[in-house]
């Protein structure tokens, strides 16, 4: 089955986007959810975005107080860029980089929630299965991420 590329390299530099209304609606919803989650650092899936650097409690506390704000700020900034540029037809290289970061975060959070492992078979997903719809969304995000990497990587 031929599927047109959703994200491709723009000959003028940056990338071109070809999303339809349904996709924009879904992405807007997912990004809004991620935004809400970033404000709730106790969510287990969000903890995947901020892994511990140290085993011992004291060093870890110190590390957190040093970098947490910076890491959170970077994530919030990338997310804001994606939400601002979602309906656009083209992205600058810098905006495309923000997309890469925010989509990576989205996949990490969703993957953690769904307990995605290497063994999960994404071919022939059944949306009626309990995790079916969410796994389909995860697979869709992975596909977009791949196109984004390819579009950015082509020089």
């Amino acid at each position, binding site marked *: 089955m031929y599927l047109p590329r959703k994200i491709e390299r723009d000959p003028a530099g940056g990338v071109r986007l070809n999303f339809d209304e349904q996709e924009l609606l879904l992405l807007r919803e997912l990004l809004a959810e991620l935004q809400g989650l970033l404000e709730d650092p106790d969510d287990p899936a969000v903890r*995947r975005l901020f*892994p*511990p650097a*140290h085993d011992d409690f004291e*060093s870890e506390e110190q*590390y957190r107080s040093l*970098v947490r704000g*910076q890491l959170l700020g970077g994530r919030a900034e990338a997310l804001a860029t994606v939400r601002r540029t979602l309906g656009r037809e083209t992205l600058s290289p810098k905006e495309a980089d923000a997309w890469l970061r925010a989509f990576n975060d989205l996949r990490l959070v969703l993957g953690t929630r769904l307990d995605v492992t290497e063994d999960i078979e994404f071919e022939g997903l059944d949306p009626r299965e309990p995790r079916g719809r969410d796994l389909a969304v995860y697979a869709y995000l992975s596909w977009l991420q791949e196109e984004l990497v390819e579009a950015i990587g082509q020089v």
Partner: protein
Amino acid sequence: MLQVHHDGKAVVSSGNRERSEHDVARLHAYGLWATMQQD
């Protein structure tokens, strides 16, 4: 990279604590799992 692929982990940086924490934070910014270990 291959070591990560086969073993699930690899040493990517070594040095003093400040330097290593800086490197760990950069990996954390990209959503990568990185921890410190004292040798």
